[in-house]
């Protein structure tokens, strides 16, 4: 008797499961593209990244929707969750990406009259160029001054695992910022804290060192040898616009560039980087360590002339053996002649391209809706152009190259104009980028739920120890 009941129960469960599981149907082609968020159609993703998740945003069309992921003979069917989200499992995704160069995604479902219909097929291109394993970023509310919870986190890009490196509940609520790595090595890094734990912290050769220089050291750039770190020393303030769509303006009353020798823990500079007549900021080393790029503007009265501070892109030669700068400063992008203002110069690992953020004025581009990414070909007479493939009508700013130079990650406010999100794009090494994609998340509605911004996304090859 007991055996009979168990058998009936087992069969019932089996039938229920079979009834629940979705399968591909013969569906009428709608002939239109599915409206999905984030948009992964026609993007190029690295073969070693976590699977994309997305929502079907077209509320009127489909019920019981399924997404059919297909590559060659491998096929996986994913049912939508209660909120029209599609989340393919990591195992299924990696079974598709392991060999394929293209993954097709077909979305089917029933329309209001109960008929099975299908949107146009989406394609996700898979590149054999792998991406670095880890991404470090700060999660912080976009702007404002007090009471915020923030932290620096590290994301394993092959999975969705996110781990806190340091959060400000451990530092008396003070601000934590300016994380920077040497040669993509998570064990050689620098970060900055304010309030009771104030100081610049340097992790190198297994040792953590705290420095408390005044003014504090920000916007770090590690020299490729690990011996030097270039910093900016800025007297920064923020004010709130009454009317402008750029809610906040962050500006410097003064700024200079210094270099820290990590062996002696002494700083040095040169008159060209510490001029009282100009603001120098955003230092960035070339991959060979022989050139320091930076941004420079004529010093103007702040805050009255905040929109007249326009930063040109400059460079100065450096001898890593002697630790001495040249006396001559080159101007690669002269804003007096070409207009706008420059921030965040970053040279590609092969040393050929320099990407920067271009905006109307000032230096704090994340609050400038007109900010776009531009690039200079350092080997083609400084040919400079906006990166149309990457830019959006809203803010596109802070960017980092992957260690192999095949990927770039950047911060964008294209989704809602306030909360910064990381987007990744493939680079062909010849000046062309593919369509950028939103960093894959474990929930399809991740963007809507997260009330913080991603700040300073930086790749590393290995994982960082907790501070």
């Amino acid at each position: 008797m007991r055996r009979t009941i168990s058998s009936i129960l087992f069969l019932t469960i089996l039938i229920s499961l079979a009834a629940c599981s979705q399968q591909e149907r013969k569906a009428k082609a709608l002939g239109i593209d599915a409206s999905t968020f984030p948009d992964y159609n026609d993007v190029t993703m690295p073969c070693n990244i976590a699977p994309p998740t997305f929502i079907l945003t077209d509320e009127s069309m489909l019920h019981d929707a399924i997404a059919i992921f297909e590559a060659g003979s491998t096929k996986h069917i994913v049912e939508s969750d209660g909120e029209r989200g599609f989340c393919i499992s990591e195992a299924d995704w990696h079974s598709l990406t392991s060999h394929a160069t293209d993954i097709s995604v077909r979305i089917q479902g029933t329309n209001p009259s109960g008929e099975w219909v299908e949107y146009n097929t989406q394609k996700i291109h898979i590149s054999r160029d792998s991406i670095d394993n880890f991404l470090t970023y700060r999660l912080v509310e976009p702007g404002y001054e007090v009471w915020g919870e923030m932290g620096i986190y590290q994301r394993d890009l092959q999975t969705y695992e996110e781990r806190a490196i340091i959060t400000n509940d451990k530092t008396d609520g003070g601000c934590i910022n300016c994380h920077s790595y040497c040669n993509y090595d998570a064990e050689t890094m620098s970060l900055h804290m304010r309030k009771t734990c104030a100081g610049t912290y340097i992790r190198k050769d297994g040792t953590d060192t705290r420095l408390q220089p005044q003014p504090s050291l920000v916007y770090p750039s590690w020299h490729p040898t690990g011996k030097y770190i270039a910093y900016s020393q800025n007297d920064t303030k923020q004010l709130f616009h009454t009317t402008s769509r750029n809610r906040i303006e962050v500006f410097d009353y003064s700024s200079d560039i210094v270099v820290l020798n990590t062996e002696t823990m002494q700083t040095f500079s040169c008159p060209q980087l510490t001029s009282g007549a100009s603001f120098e900021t955003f230092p960035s080393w070339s991959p060979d360590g022989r050139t320091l790029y930076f941004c420079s503007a004529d010093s103007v009265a702040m805050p009255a002339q905040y929109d007249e501070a326009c930063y040109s892109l400059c460079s100065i030669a450096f001898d890593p053996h002697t630790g001495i700068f040249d006396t001559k400063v080159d101007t690669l992008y002269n804003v007096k002649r070409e207009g706008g203002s420059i921030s965040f110069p970053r040279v590609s690992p092969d040393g050929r391209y320099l990407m920067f953020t271009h905006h109307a004025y000032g230096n704090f581009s994340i609050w400038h809706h007109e900010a776009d990414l531009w690039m200079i070909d350092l080997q083609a007479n400084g040919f400079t152009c906006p990166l149309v493939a990457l830019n959006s009508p809203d803010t596109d700013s802070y960017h980092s190259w992957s260690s192999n130079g095949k990927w770039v990650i950047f911060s964008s406010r294209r989704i809602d104009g306030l909360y910064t999100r990381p987007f990744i794009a493939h680079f062909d090494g010849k000046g062309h980028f593919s369509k950028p994609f939103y960093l894959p998340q474990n929930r399809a509605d991740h963007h809507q739920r997260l009330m913080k911004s991603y700040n300073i996304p930086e790749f590393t090859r290995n994982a960082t120890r907790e501070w």
Partner: protein
Amino acid sequence: MSSFPRRSLQPLVLLIAIVLSGVFTAMSQPVLTYCEGWNTFYYDTQYIHTVGCAEAVRGFVLQFFAHQWHGILFLSLLAAITCMAVWGIMRRVKCGAVVTSIASLIISLMANVGIVCWTTQMSLSTLLPMGGETAVNRQFIEGSDMVRTQQWDEIIEYFASKAPVANELHQNLLNMAYAEQGKLGDMLLNQPCQNINAIYVSDIPNYLIAAHLSDVYYSMGHIAQSQRYAFESNEKMHNLSPRMLQRLVQTNIIYEQYEVAKKYLYWLKRTLYYRDWADEHLALIKGSDPSNHPLAMKRKCIFADNRFSGTRGLDDDLLQVARSTRGTKQCVTTLHYLGSLYILADYTDQFVSMVEEFGDVLRSNGHLPRYFDQYYNHLKRQ
């Protein structure tokens, strides 16, 4: 013999427990309603993960105080359940009828008091209307609740019984109610207002005062400052304070930042008591005619001449708001604030200039508001 009194006593004890709990909760209700503004329950797994179980339980209890009678009923029901549970336990251990009754009553009431103290994280002296320092807090809380629901008459009536109103935060609330009714210029110096802190306090020691300032600036028509303080305050509450989320929805709709507003509405839709409000505002974003909506009126406060908030003085910002809202009720409210700030700061030239520019708006039956008139005539005589 022993079971007879128990049976007849049980409904009576239950009734007394419900009444006692109901009375205590009703007395604490303004505080509970105030706390609900900072913490409600979101029907979402990530919410529990973000705030932790304890905060989620607090939020679950507090959510019912979005509607005061729902909250009182909920806690009374909880007291009734506690009473019945204690009754059952006492019966099992065969206690006498009187002991069982008293124990059931005391434990259920204590449980109710404990829950209220824990969810509000306030002492009994603040929860119950008593004298001293706690009464000052209690009055601010009650006033702030009324500001949230825009009960301007009730605020005036409430503080009228407590005159003279010497506390600056209380003055802020009362003056806000007067300004909203276009009476501030008539009533300003009826209370011992010493300086501009009577209009808006300058010290911002915590997120509660930041939220209060968001209300004051919103009333003034200074939307950028209102948004700024709402954002700051919301940060402290895991970005999930329903009161601040509502304010941020309003300010972002005013600034036509609809995608940001949708983000906050996404969360409010996951609550029991703000779902309808969220749907109404989503419809507004999606294209319902907003012309008669209060937010459309507030949009006029965004003046064309962009500047950094306060760098030319708050008064100059408000002057721009008054100019851009001329012909609306907001203009009158803003001018009452502006004139009062000029009087309290003794900005004579600016006051005269304001009266000359906006005399037609400020005069009622040919007269300026009482204290504006007195100050103006005093300046003219000089």
